[in-house]
């Protein structure tokens, strides 16, 4: 009785009650994975072995898996923040891509400013993402335009425009890849687990989780944001400026995505390639859903998704299946993760 009280004070609600549903969904997803392997592969045993164990075999695979989780953590945080305020940011693809591209170009352009230029470039990445999402938020604030649809549409446009820019005006003339120039060496994040490409960006992701958690549960603005999401009429009734919280959470959300894109560039890719990180936006959404929009839960959820993708990649390399199997497994998760039937398994509500 005493322990939960203390935990609650710090905003960490006892996780057990609702976890059964999440665990069940993960189990079903993995079951489908096994099913697919058995149905499609000539060597299901090998396929599954590489899928489940591949990411964990050695430092290289494991580190890469952690690294892949970084943009998922940022995206998951972004979506969770927006959803807590009742806003649906479906534009993660464009915000991530836009932030990454902007950070790349800024880093290259400001290389003469040294480390400061690097920091400014990362900030620019976050800003671009924030502005994109904030635009949808603004439309919702002024004219009640559905931000889910506008963020999605805008994101599609942004992806196409950046594809054009990377292949056209900003293409690196010295390589055959469809990519921009690389960012200067001194700006790149340090690798922390050789030979994998895990970088210090991972620490950044963890810090972001902490910051978002603290923001939501320990600041007045975070409280207002949550109230707007729980019951907008109530928030207005209490004197909270609900209109502002149609824009601000979207801005934060987009900024987190943009930051994730920038970190991916500075930590892993060092250059913007055409359609790299495709699908990360939606994965961020899935991560947020599994985490039930709780910042602390975003980390295990992101790791789970990174694990699935790493496993798929490993299975693809060593066996005869294709990478898109991961999409199917992710789809299974998506199908079930908002199911009220699953959410209330094993829970009981009482009235006093």
């Amino acid at each position, binding site marked *: 009785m005493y322990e939960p*009280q203390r935990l*609650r*004070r710090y905003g960490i609600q006892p996780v057990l009650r609702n976890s059964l549903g999440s665990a069940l969904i993960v189990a079903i997803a993995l079951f489908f994975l096994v099913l697919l392997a058995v149905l499609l592969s000539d060597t299901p045993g090998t396929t599954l072995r590489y899928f489940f164990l591949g990411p964990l075999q050695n430092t290289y695979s494991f580190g890469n898996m952690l690294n892949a989780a970084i943009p998922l953590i940022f995206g998951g945080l972004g979506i969770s923040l927006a959803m807590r305020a009742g806003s649906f940011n479906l534009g993660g693809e464009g915000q991530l891509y836009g932030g990454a591209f902007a950070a790349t170009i800024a880093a290259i352009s400001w290389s003469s400013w040294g480390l400061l230029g690097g920091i400014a470039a990362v900030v620019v990445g976050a800003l671009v993402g924030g502005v994109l999402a904030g635009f949808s938020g603004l439309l919702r604030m002024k004219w009640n335009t559905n931000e889910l649809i506008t963020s999605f549409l805008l994101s599609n446009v942004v992806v196409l425009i950046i594809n054009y820019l990377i292949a056209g005006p900003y293409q690196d003339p010295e390589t055959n890849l469809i990519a921009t120039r690389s960012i200067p060496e001194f700006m790149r994040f340090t690798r922390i687990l050789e030979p994998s490409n895990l970088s210090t960006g991972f620490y950044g992701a963890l810090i972001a989780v902490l910051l978002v958690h603290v923001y939501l*549960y*320990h*600041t*007045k*603005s*975070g*409280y*207002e944001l*949550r*109230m707007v999401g*729980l*019951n907008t*009429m*109530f*928030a*207005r*009734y*209490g*004197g*909270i*400026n609900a209109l502002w919280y149609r824009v601000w959470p979207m801005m934060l959300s987009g900024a987190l995505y943009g930051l994730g894109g920038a970190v991916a560039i500075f930590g892993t890719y060092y250059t913007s390639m055409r359609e790299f990180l495709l699908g990360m936006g939606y994965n961020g959404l899935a991560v947020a859903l599994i985490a039930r929009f709780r910042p602390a839960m975003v980390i295990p959820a992101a790791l789970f998704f990174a694990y699935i993708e790493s496993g798929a990649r490993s299975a693809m390399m060593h066996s005869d299946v294709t990478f898109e199997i991961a999409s199917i497994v992710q789809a299974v998760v998506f199908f079930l993760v908002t199911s009220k039937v699953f959410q209330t398994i094993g829970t*009981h*509500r*009482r*009235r*006093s």
Partner: protein
Amino acid sequence: MTDVDLAVAMHGVVKIYPETQLHANDQVDLTLRKGEILCLAGENGAGKTTLMKVLYGMERPDSGTISVGGIERTITSVMDANALGIGMVQQHVMLIDDFTVAQNVVLGKEPKRFGMHLDVPRSQHLVNEVIKAHRFSIDAADKVASLAVGQKQQVEIVKMLYRDVDILILDEPTAVLTEQETEALFSTLRALANQGKSLILITHKLREIRAISDRVAIMRQGKMVGEYETATITEQDISRMMMGQSVSLDVVKPPYHRKKRPIITFKDVFVVKRNQPRPLLSHLSFSAYTGEVLGFAGVGGNGLGVLEAVLGGFLPVSTGAVFHDGKDITLRGTRRARSDGLAYVPADRLKVGSALYATVAENLIVASREQFTRFGWLQRRKIEKHADALIGTYNIRAQAFSPIGTLSGGNIQKVVLAREIDRLQDFIVFSEPTWGLDVASSRFVYDKIISLRDRGAAVILISSNLDEILALSDRVAVLCRGSISALLSPEQVAQVTKEEMGSYMLGMNQQEVRDV
């Protein structure tokens, strides 16, 4: 009388709702004779609606039997009930505004041609037939959105008659009707009974029981207390059996002193909405003074809700001015209203007054967040101590960190009261404060209102509950079609009859509004 002569006989009905573990129905027996009007009486939460939902197939009982026309039946769905000739008119009108009367009535039992094509002319014809047979004031082609509340209820009754029901259940039908509409309804019901139909009327209004019923069945806390011939029982007896004790809205009010300062003043306020032909509020002028309860009475749809929204800052004023202790506060949204010192208990405590998934503590600080913030940082310990203190003072059965949605209605209202009274400065607005509350909680609210008035606050009480208004208010303003049709002084309040109030509320009578 054996079961064969009865229209309906229910024996030993038990219904337990798993979430509450409460016996909503505890071994309940009920009999309904053919051609009679039976009133099912009881307080809120006594189990009347649950029992009727069981009869109507909307709920399955945990045990018990139901006989219709002497034959035992199993009723598992509304369809089953309809097939047995049982119909129910719910408390909240279940109609589709965009559809016509005919469409609403035939929905679910549509006349067809060639098996699939909807026969629109025949629908209208059949529905009009039913309407004419019972002399209702509607037409099959009318769009439901354009009907008045009383007419919408007529549509509900036509819906049931179209399905050839012999047994008709009505759940609190007069809750939203005026006196005159109630009379019209009652004559309809008597006509139906004369035609041989059997009626059950769920109600808790003593006067109506006496006016309309042949017999009355009284329930209390899930149990059936007894069935009685209405002619042989007094209103005192009925209310005693309903409540378990003698009831009276005995509010002890210290005498009213001559008014002092006006705290809230409305000057010729108009509220207009673009798609409404009539102004929602017009020529509204009044003042609420320190140390008084100013009650606003009226029938739903005549401006009570609009007034509440304006006071709460949700709805802007179109023309006119609003003053708070001399300060012009006409153009203010909810934010400025709160910083201006608004204390406001809304009618809808669930949708407006609380956030169900937030904790009690979080609910308590919404309007006074600034006090618990330092440099943007929430002072959680201070918030929790504050919550614990209020929980103690108001005797709220909850803990600071419980989500407020797990509390009962009465306790939720206590949280709302605690929050608003705690931040009260010089005035407070109450809207429908005891809606859906049991006797004990209502008493609590009434005591608080009186004590606030004695402390010198200006209390504005908006309520559609006439008993409440007349018992608590020092002065009463009646809103009809958005303007004040009568403003009663304390002496007049003490003497006015409910019929007179009804006539003001319906606009049949207007008082010269002098004293503002």
